[in-house]
């Protein structure tokens, strides 16, 4: 939907795609601090986002995700720390940074009285784009976000989801090489959510860099190359989704037998694989990758030799949910309430 022509103004090649690794990361942050109180805000954040990749910021409500996005998008001034966006110093050269970025915040940042088309035209002009480019891109974006029929209606008459989609379309009018999305799919229906994921993947395939915050762990899992967890304004973990999942546990194989007796026979046969039994279910960890397949073969052979056969099997991968709960210490809902009420008392 867009051409990558004319990105000559960039000091580094951000449009090179994922294959050619540019020397300078799209976003580079060191010691970024913006404090509101002792535990709210953002403290000493270090973050590097390679050009052409997606990084997700995860964390509980109030962890500082939005503060981080607003700092990076030049909406807030940091107390301390350095931010380089697309090679530019965000504090000293905000306009240069602003020409590279697109932002979709949590509330719809569009003009309610203008039409959808009018919004795209105005924000395109304020990006100093030529009229012809604005016309072409507006048409494509309105189509892509399924807003073509509402293009000439005032935004006031749009539903919440439509406003959200227009907000995203407006963020893309200048084909930003760095896109900040603060909970972009909150309030979208599943179809629009999928459509936005597709658009994000397309943009990244063309070399754009995306930093997003989300409440949905499956969204981070589906889109992000790297995930940064923050809690109480501090980074608590960072890595690729698979690395983070590997930290909390291994893949589990669950075998369900017809009877407890069969299950016990199987468990005994799989003693060496650290199998445990619970009722008619036997569960054991599987290593990842190629080793996992070999282990699976060994398990099947061992169960076969013991003369029992499972009725059902399933494989459970650790999810980002497991990572989230382990990192934030919100293990179970009842524990969370206990912790929260303890917090209340200390205030």
């Amino acid at each position, binding site marked *: 939907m867009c051409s990558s022509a004319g990105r000559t103004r960039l000091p580094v090649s951000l449009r090179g795609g994922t294959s050619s690794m540019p020397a300078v990361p799209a976003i580079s942050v060191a010691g970024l601090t913006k404090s509101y109180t002792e535990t709210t805000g953002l403290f000493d954040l270090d973050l590097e986002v390679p050009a052409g990749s997606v990084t997700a910021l995860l964390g509980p409500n109030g962890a500082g995700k939005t503060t981080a996005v607003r700092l990076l998008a030049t909406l807030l001034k940091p107390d301390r720390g350095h931010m380089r966006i697309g090679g530019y110093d965000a504090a000293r050269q905000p306009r240069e940074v602003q020409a590279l970025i697109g932002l979709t915040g949590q509330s719809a*940042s569009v003009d309610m009285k*203008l039409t959808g088309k009018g919004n795209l035209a*105005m924000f395109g002009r304020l990006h100093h784009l030529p009229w012809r480019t604005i016309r072409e891109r507006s048409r494509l974006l309105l189509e892509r976000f399924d807003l073509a029929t509402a293009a000439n209606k005032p935004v006031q008459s749009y539903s919440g989801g439509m406003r959200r989609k227009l907000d995203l379309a407006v963020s893309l009018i200048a084909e930003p090489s760095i896109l900040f999305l603060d909970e972009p799919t909150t309030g979208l229906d599943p179809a629009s959510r999928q459509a936005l994921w597709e658009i994000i993947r397309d943009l990244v395939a063309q070399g754009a860099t995306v930093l997003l915050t989300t409440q949905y762990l499956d969204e981070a899992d589906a889109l992000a190359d790297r995930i940064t967890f923050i809690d109480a304004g501090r980074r608590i973990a960072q890595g690729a989704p698979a690395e983070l999942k590997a930290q909390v546990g291994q893949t589990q194989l669950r075998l369900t037998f017809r009877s407890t007796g069969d299950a016990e026979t199987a468990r005994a046969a799989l003693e060496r694989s650290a199998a445990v039994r619970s009722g008619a279910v036997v569960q054991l960890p599987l290593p990842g990758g190629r080793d996992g397949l070999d282990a699976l073969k060994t398990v099947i052979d061992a169960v076969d030799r013991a003369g029992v056969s499972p009725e059902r099997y399933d494989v459970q991968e650790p999810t980002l949910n497991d990572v989230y709960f382990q990192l934030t210490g919100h293990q179970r809902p009842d524990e969370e309430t206990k912790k929260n009420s303890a917090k209340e008392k200390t205030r």
Partner: protein
Amino acid sequence: MTAVSRPARSLWWTLSDHAEMVKRSLKHIAHDPDQLVTVTLQPVLTLVIMNIFLGGAIQAGMQQNYLDFLLPGVFLVMAGFAAVTTATSVAVDMLQGVIDRFRTLPMAKSSIVTGHVISDLPRAAIGLAVTIGVGVLFGFRSSAGIGAWAAAIGLTLLVTFALSWVAAVIGLLGRSLEVVQQLAAVIILPVFLSNALVPTDTLPDWLRGVVANQPISQATDAMRALLSNQPVGDHLALALIEFAAISVLAFIIATLLFKRAATR
């Protein structure tokens, strides 16, 4: 092809940004013509109430035709109401999400407020045309030449511009739309505490000294002299200087307030 977003560094793009923001405000008026009600209905109502209901009583105490005295004053009533709208428009921009979008664009940020202020001028021009039309229907006649009329219209627009910057300051100060709407009424107050609608002869001396010399009264005196072909004395020069000064001062305060709001 140069289809790339670029920062507003040149004078050309700064002017383009201002033009775009003025266009935006004018589109708001087109989409929501209610905004024209204030600048047309309020001066017309003032004209009707003052001329028909109170005019007879006021006329008894003066030599001049009261309508000829009143109409230039109603221009200033119109200017006040035209400016009030800016307080609300600026506050709506600052309090709603759209400000975040503007602030992350490579545009000249000053155009966000200036766009609203400048778009008050065409709005005021419409209000002025309606006010003059209704005045003529009521029997207002002027022997003034084109130059004097141009000066009177120019002065009305300068007053609108100055009051509009004051309104912008109020719009930037308010923490909620309701507060801003209440505060904005303050802009109209000096118009009623002037000689715009009634002669000040009957006021106590100390009060008359204040009321007759405040900027709105200076502008009214200049306007009356212009439209009745009388010498303007120093009223016109004083009014021009005072409203230019108010414009500059309010502009500086508005710029500082905007910067403060932008770095929260």
